[in-house]
Every structure is written in C-alpha cells, then in structure tokens.
C-alpha cells in the first residue's frame, strides 16, 4: 500500500470534513432549536462565498494588500450571510412556527430555490474564478506537496469555531437560553426567555459559520457558482444526521467521517459516484440508526 497516497487522501478527507463541519454546525443548531431542516443553509454559504468574491474583486482593483482583503472579505461574508439567514428566518420560517413541520420544510425549499436563482439572475450562471486569499506559509514550504496552507487554515478555523460554539452553548447566558428553547419552547417562554430572539441569534450564528466555510472552500477550490450551496448543503445535512442531529460534537464527528469516507472512496474506488456515495450513506443511516452516532433517541409523546 502506498502510504503517501493514503496520507494525501486522509488530509483531503480532513479538509472536506472540516468544511462540512462548518456547515453542519449551522444545520444542527437550527434543527436542535426549531426542528427545521433548513434546506436553504447551503445557499447562505453560497451567498457568503459570492459576497467575499465581490469584495475581493473590488478591493483588489483598488490595490489593497492581501491580508486586509482577506479580513474584510471574510467579515463581509459573515455579515451578509448572517443578514440573509436572519431575514430568511423572519420571512419564511417565523410565520410557520406553529404550522406542521412539512410546511416549514417546503418553505425552506422555496427559500433555497429563490436564493439560488436570485444570485443566478443578479450575478451570473458561470463559474467564477476565486482568488486564493490565504497566503502561503513559509514553514509549510517543505511539505507543500502534501498539505497546502489553505488547508491548515481550514482545519484551524473549524477547530476554533467548534470550541467557541461549544463554550457559547455550555457557558453563556444566550447558550443557556438556546438549550432551554431547544428543550421546550413554551416553557422557555414562560420562564422569560425571549424565544424569537434566541431563534434569530441561532440563525445568525449558524449563517456566520456557514459564511466562513464558504470563504475558505471557495479560496481553496478556486471557483464558485450559484449552485455550490446545494450539494454542499445536502452533504452537510448528511453529516449532521450521521453525527446525530442536534448534537454539536456529533456534527463535527459526522462531518469528518463523511469527509474521510468520501475521500477514500473516490481515491481508491471511483470518483464518478462520489455524490451517490454520500446519498447512499444518508439513506443507510436514516434507516438503521436515525438518531446518528451521538444523537439521542427521541420518542413520540402519546
């Protein structure tokens, strides 16, 4: 067995997994709180990437330096993605808080369809080249064939975001309010939690994480179009379900497992069926272990 190749696939899987994780965290947070599969989450990520691309384009032409561009572009992506996530929640999900679950899901599909075509019409349907915003690190020179600096940044960001979110949820006031809302919205409201605000904040945080993922993956892969959100979104959902939807560590674990399996599968078996693999994975988990690796089993109250 060629160990170098194995290691390459391993790192490739880690990169994929880390990106899925940034998306899956948002999925899992929203699902944990309002039990909605936020179908449009991938679109939020796509919008983050587009915003970053636009900001980068303008600033590059104005001759700014690379680090400043990276920071401003990421910031813009985070701000705008959050704003889109917040607005989508207010318009398409909030009025459906008490409606059947499927209504909210259909509405989310509507948001996804709308945002995709909005970007398609306002920008372009072509693939756009995305500049590599992340500077090459000097210390990586000796191993640059194996791991690129953008990958290192991706791992680091995912780790930091995961730790930060865990701290936020475990130890802060808003985190406590989130957990209360997730347990029982009515009770949370009764004990004085501003449920609407909590849900809004959840969407904002989830969207911001997705935006980071958008910027990182776009500059890693080097191109984007309006459709990148859809498949990424579905895969992140698979990851979230795999880990146990509603569970943060589960989302990260599920993402890594999915990233690695995909990477090894395409590396050793066939790359034609890369996406099929994720879907088959999804179908199998949902059938045999719907609660995921780390999820709790929920029983229907009768």
């Amino acid at each position, binding site marked *: 067995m060629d160990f170098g190749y194995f290691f390459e696939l391993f790192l490739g899987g880690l990169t994929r997994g880390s990106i899925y994780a940034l998306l899956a965290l948002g999925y899992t947070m929203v699902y944990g709180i309002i039990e909605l599969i936020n179908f449009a989450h991938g679109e939020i990520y796509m919008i983050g990437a587009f915003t970053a691309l636009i900001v980068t384009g303008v600033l590059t032409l104005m001759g700014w330096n690379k680090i400043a561009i990276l920071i401003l572009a990421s910031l813009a992506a985070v701000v705008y993605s959050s704003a889109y996530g917040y607005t989508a929640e207010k318009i398409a999900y909030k009025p459906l808080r008490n409606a059947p679950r499927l209504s909210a899901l259909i509405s989310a599909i509507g948001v996804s369809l709308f945002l995709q075509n909005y970007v398609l019409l306002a920008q372009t349907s072509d693939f756009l080249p995305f500049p590599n915003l992340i500077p090459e690190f000097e210390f990586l020179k000796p191993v640059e064939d194996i791991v690129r600096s953008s990958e290192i940044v991706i791992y680091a960001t995912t780790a930091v975001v995961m730790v930060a979110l865990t701290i936020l949820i475990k130890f802060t006031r808003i985190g406590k309010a989130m957990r209360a809302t997730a347990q029982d919205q009515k009770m949370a409201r009764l004990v004085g939690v501003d449920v609407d605000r909590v849900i809004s904040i959840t969407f904002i945080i989830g969207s911001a994480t997705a935006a980071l993922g958008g910027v990182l993956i776009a500059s890693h892969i080097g191109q984007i179009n309006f459709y990148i959100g859809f498949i990424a979104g579905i895969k992140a959902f698979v990851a979230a379900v795999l880990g146990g939807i509603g569970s943060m560590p589960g989302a990260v674990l599920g993402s890594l497992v999915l990233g690695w399996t995909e990477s090894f599968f395409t590396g050793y078996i066939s790359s034609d069926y890369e996406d099929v693999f994720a879907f088959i994975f999804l179908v199998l988990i*949902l059938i045999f272990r719907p609660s995921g690796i780390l999820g709790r089993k929920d029983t229907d109250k009768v």
Partner: protein
Amino acid sequence: MFNVKELKKSILVSLWFMFLTFPIMVIKVNTIYGKVEWRWYRMALVGVGSFFLSFVWRALLRRKEMGLKKAEEGQEVKVPLTRKLISDKRFNRPALVVVCLFALLFPLVFSLYQVNIMTTALIYVVVGLGLNIVVGLAGLLDLGYVAFYAVGAYSYALLNYHFGLGFWTVLPIGAGLAMLFGILLGFPVLRLRGDYLAIVTLGFGEIIRIILENWNEFSFGPSGIANIPRPGFFGIQMNLHQVHIYIYYLMIGMTVFTIFVVRRLQDSRIGRAWMALREDEVACQAMGIDKTKTKLSAFALGATWAGMGGVVFAAKTTFINPASFTIWESIIILCIVVLGGMGSIVGVICGALVLILLPEYLRAFSEYRMLMFGAALIIMMVFRPGGIISDVRKVYHFEGLKEESKDL
C-alpha cells in the same frame, strides 16, 4: 392603515433590503478584464419594491391572523368563493362542459406550437395528480418523485432501443417498473419521520440521476437516448402534425383517466386511510390501519403515475437524458401540488396549467420562472397552506341518510 408607524416600518424594511441586496445586486466584478460594474439603479428598484411589498406583506399577515382568531373563537369562517363555486352544481356543471369542449376543440383552433405546450402541461397535470396522492392525500413529502418519472422514461427508451417494444406495450411496463421501484424504496424508508423521509427521497432521486449519468453502458450517460419513436395508432402512418395532435388527445385521455381514478380513490376506504395517516399517525394506527401498508400503497401508486408520465414524456420529446430528471424537476412538480392545493384535484390541475403555461406564454417571465417558484412556495406556505383551491371534503350522501335513519 397608512399611518406614520406603518410608514416607518416600511422605510426600515426598504433600507434593510437595500443593504441586504447591495453587493449581489449592485456590484458585478469582471475579474478577467479587471472592471467593476456598479448598477445603482437596481438598489433604487429594490428600495421602492420592498417599501411597497412590506405593506402588502403586513396586511396579508394581519388578515391571516384575523382569520385564525375567528376560527378560534368558533365564529363562522367565511367559505371562500372558489370553494363555493366548485361545490355549487349550478356553476360546476356548465363549467365542466365548457372545459371539456375547450380541451376537445383545442387542436382545431390553436397552432401546433400551442398544442405541444398544452400537451406538456397535461403531462405535468398527470404526474402532479400522482404526486398529489403521495403528498396531498397521504402527507408524505416525496422530493425524489422525478426518479420514478425517469424510470418510466428510460424504460420506454431502453426497451425500445434493445427490444423494439412499442409505446403501448411499454406504457404498462413502465408504470409497473416505476411501481416496483416505489415499493422497493418505500419498504425501508417509509418508517422514517416526515422530514427525514423528504431528504431520503431526495437522495434517492439524485442517486438515480447520477447513476444514469455515469453508467454509460446502460443509459448512454449524459448524452442520453435519441430517436425514441412516438406512439403509434394501430399501425397507421401519421405525419408530424397528426402525431402531435394524436399525443395531445392521448394526454387528454390519460388526464381524464387519472382524474377518474384519483377521485374514486379519494372517496374510498383506502383514500380515507391515507388522509387519516396525514392527520395523525398514532391515532391512525389505533384505528386499526396498517401504517406501513397504507403508506406503501400511496407511495407505489404515486410512483406508478410518474412512470406513466415518464413513458409519455419520452415518447413526446423523442429524446431523453439525465438532465431532464434533476431534483428541481421534482420541486416543480411539488410546486404544482402545493400551489394548486394539496389534496384537491381541481387545484392540482390549475396549479399545473398556471406554472407550466405562464412561463411559456410570458417569455419575459420565463427567465424568472424558478425565482418565482421559490417565492411562490414561501408565500403559499405562509399565507395559504391549503393552496389556491383547498381540498373540498365530500358531503356523504347525507340528506338521504337522515331520512333513512329516522325510520329506524
């Protein structure tokens, strides 16, 4: 209504949307030529548009809340006009006659181009009614519906290519194969909760599409299959014009057949079980209804109809490739059902006609088709979850019964 507070709200909304859409709507960077295009007029459009729309939005929300409150207080909820018209015999009989005449005379009056468009719309009516069984009646959100449509289309194309089988032979075979697929998929997944089911069916639809795209030896890959023969009519030779009109009438026949079947199913033991399942699974089982069997029957029947639609689709276009069977096709069919009114036959027919014909006739509009569909899904769910024409419950031969029971 137009007081200062409302005005302020609308101005805030308008400012917010101008901010929100700023980068994507206004700026366009051309990285190759190093040029930035600033399209400020768009910002003005967004501002003005969202200003007015926010008034409409809030007015509609208020109206909906009033309706809910009325229902809660047990007040008489006004029966909507559409429902009144549909259930009124004086209106629906003549309307039905007019619609039938129109449908029959259509190819004589309009051009071949129009007939073709109408045929496409009718295919959507048929598959829409099929999906309506699954989503509208049984309440199972199936996002992979187009997979069964693909099964139908590919069975005709491939069986014809390899064995030379004709349209009429394959029609039942295609329907049967789609049903088989429905059952095969249904067995494992129908235990899942509603939203998981939606995602799994979506995954299944994509799996089928990707397989069709990559398995060249079987499906000829992305290039698809061309020269699929159109349906024959007792071996009579027809020119292109005649064939198109023939397919049109064939679709009319199929639509009538579908309506007939769905109507009868709705008012049957099985149909009621589907609806009960949609309303409350636990109570449904406590009433002695076998959940798995009932779900499976709805799922398989919906798939059958998709399969039939697929066969006709392949025969009509004479060319198919995997690109015709993406997830968005499933979502368009879902739009038809949701927009028209889940569970309502008239609603689904109207939904299909509006969604398919409107973009065809308003060319300027067709570019915005998917955008509008997305918006429509949201708006319908928020304001009218029942659809344009909501389900009319049958009033069971009740007057006669009352007298009967008095004799007891």
